[in-house]
């Protein structure tokens, strides 16, 4: 088992109180597994992604543990966490377009970054990786401003995976790309795993259809908690959680005309996580809600590898 997260709680410290962005989440990611992490804005997926590599100043590790390859990661300790970053856990950030220092040539920046981490630059390996994502070697002599958005994205992908990390977190990396580029990026990520550059991957996105194409397992989160986790095919074809069902129903289907039936979203919005309601957090928007939903539903494995947190599942 590559990554094991148990009952992880990460809260944001704000002036109004604690925002419970991640409130007791447990899951595992196996070797050579790509986990797609889906959910709408504010469900805690980015918080989870950040928690695994670098918390920002407002985040507090409240409880729970994260184990990577059998070793516990000190996610709340910024200093000690440094040993894991880049070597063991790496990140392709949401903001790839602006992730590179604008006043340094890319090759020089990579060399300085590696040097600062005490790693010798293997020029051959770097060039090989550039070839793998279809970038010419000249990009190393260019400034970020001289590259297109897609090229910058690929440069970041190469840099992030240069030390062959065990876990790669890809945080909403396709949001800013057009559809054909999205497909290419998703393909490149799958290739990283297939070529053994990374052992496992968490692919954070709000785009279920894209996740479905590359993820082995999809985990749907809602309001800081796990809603449903199952193999990708199963979650799309036979979702159990009402939230997952609504989420999938709100996607357009290929070949279907929507003349008679309007695509519907999910009415309402997620609850405030400052003082989340007791019981099931989806209760207020759920068409199936009943009395028992006043109590929090436990995460139950309803079929092999298929866990759902819903009384009606």
């Amino acid at each position, binding site marked *: 088992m590559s990554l094991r997260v148990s009952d992880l709680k990460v809260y944001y410290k704000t002036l109004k109180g604690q925002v419970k962005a991640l409130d007791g989440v447990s899951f595992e990611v196996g070797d050579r597994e790509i986990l797609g992490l889906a959910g709408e804005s504010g469900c805690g997926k980015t918080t989870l992604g950040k928690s695994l*590599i*670098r918390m920002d100043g407002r985040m507090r590790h409240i409880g729970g543990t994260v184990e990577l390859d059998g070793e516990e990661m000190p996610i709340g300790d910024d200093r000690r*966490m*440094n*040993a*894991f*970053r*880049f*070597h063991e856990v*790496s*990140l392709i*950030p949401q*903001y790839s377009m*602006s*992730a*590179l*220092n*604008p*006043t*340094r*040539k890319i090759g020089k920046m990579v060399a*300085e*970054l590696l040097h*600062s*981490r005490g790693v010798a630059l293997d020029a051959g390996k770097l060039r090989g990786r550039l070839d793998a994502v279809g970038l010419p070697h000249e990009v190393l002599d260019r*400034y970020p*401003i*001289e590259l297109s958005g897609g090229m910058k994205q690929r440069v*970041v992908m190469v*840099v*992030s995976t240069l030390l062959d990390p065990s876990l790669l977190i890809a945080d909403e990396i396709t949001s800013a790309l057009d559809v054909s580029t999205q497909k290419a990026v998703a393909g490149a990520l799958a290739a990283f795993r297939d070529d053994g550059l990374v052992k496992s991957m968490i692919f954070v996105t709000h785009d279920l259809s894209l996740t479905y194409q590359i993820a082995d397992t999809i985990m749907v989160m809602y309001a800081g908690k796990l809603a449903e986790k199952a193999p990708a095919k199963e979650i799309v074809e036979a979702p159990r959680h009402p939230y997952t069902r609504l989420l999938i129903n709100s996607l357009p289907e290929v070949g279907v005309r929507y003349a008679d039936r309007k695509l519907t979203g999910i009415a309402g919005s997620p609850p405030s996580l400052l003082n989340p309601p007791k019981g099931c957090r989806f209760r207020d928007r759920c068409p199936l809600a009943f009395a028992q939903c006043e109590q929090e539903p436990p995460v139950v494995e309803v079929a092999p590898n298929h866990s759902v947190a819903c009384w009606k599942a």
Partner: protein
Amino acid sequence: MRRYFGRKLLVYGLTFFVAVTINWMVPRFMPGDPVSSMVARTGASNPAAAETMRVYYTGLFGLDQPIWQQYFNFWATLFQGDFGISIWAFPTPVSEIILGAVPYTLALMIPAILLSWVVGNWFGAYAARRKALDNAVLPIGYILTAMPYMWLAVLLAWGLGVVAGLFPVAGGYSFSTRPNWSWDFFLDLLHHWTLPFASLFLAALGGWAIGMRNMIIYELESDYSNYLSALGAPQRLIRRYAFRNAVLPQITGLALQLGVLVAGALVTEIVFSYPGLGSLILKAIQNQDFFLLQGTFLFIVLGVLIANFIIDIVYVVVDPRTRAGMAGAQA
């Protein structure tokens, strides 16, 4: 590259023309007549003699010609390197007076501006995100910036000059000495230079430190800093990148400062009776010395333009994005 600098040079040429024209016009709009005050100074009581002198001086300075003719004469003589003759210090040529004052102003302003810039930037960058230091730098910086520089000059002159008696409070050198190339004279110059320099240096320091501190915090919060942190890069590297990028707007600020080089020293020079261009401007205005005023303003204009041109070049060297702009790209 050539097109970029060609365009820049054209803009500078136009600016020079307009600025010099305005400089020529401004003294002539001043009320009063320089020649009559000059004649009055000679104390000629005989009206006929006074009239003769008036006609002589008016002809000498070319003030009897129509105004447009005066303007063309001005440009013609300017290109021959002739700035005219001073009215206040008649008959010394303006260029000679200015060349005597320029070294004092430059020796005062260039170290004050450059050192305050370097020290302020370094200090601000160092203090940013270091709690205890930051809490000290910020208020001290605000106090220094908010303090009018002439008031600071008066304070220093009074405290260190009059009360403590450590430094002289007036002049560029002791009245008992004559300028010469000796070690003693140099020390004397330095002694007189310290207080005006310190007042300018301190007044500018706070602003640079605060500006740099804010820029560094902005840069440390930017995406590339976050990315480097996520990859575990040490603070040293991230801060180095942040500094390099944060210094770019500061360079623009420096260009503006260099631009007001002479004007900035004006009040300081007056407080310390320092024999620089600032004091000259004051004397020129008081004596309605058209030619001296024109000449000093011309120097200021040249200074501003040269400073800006140098900064343009520096920018091309330090910011690769300007180089992209030269190829016609929009930033």
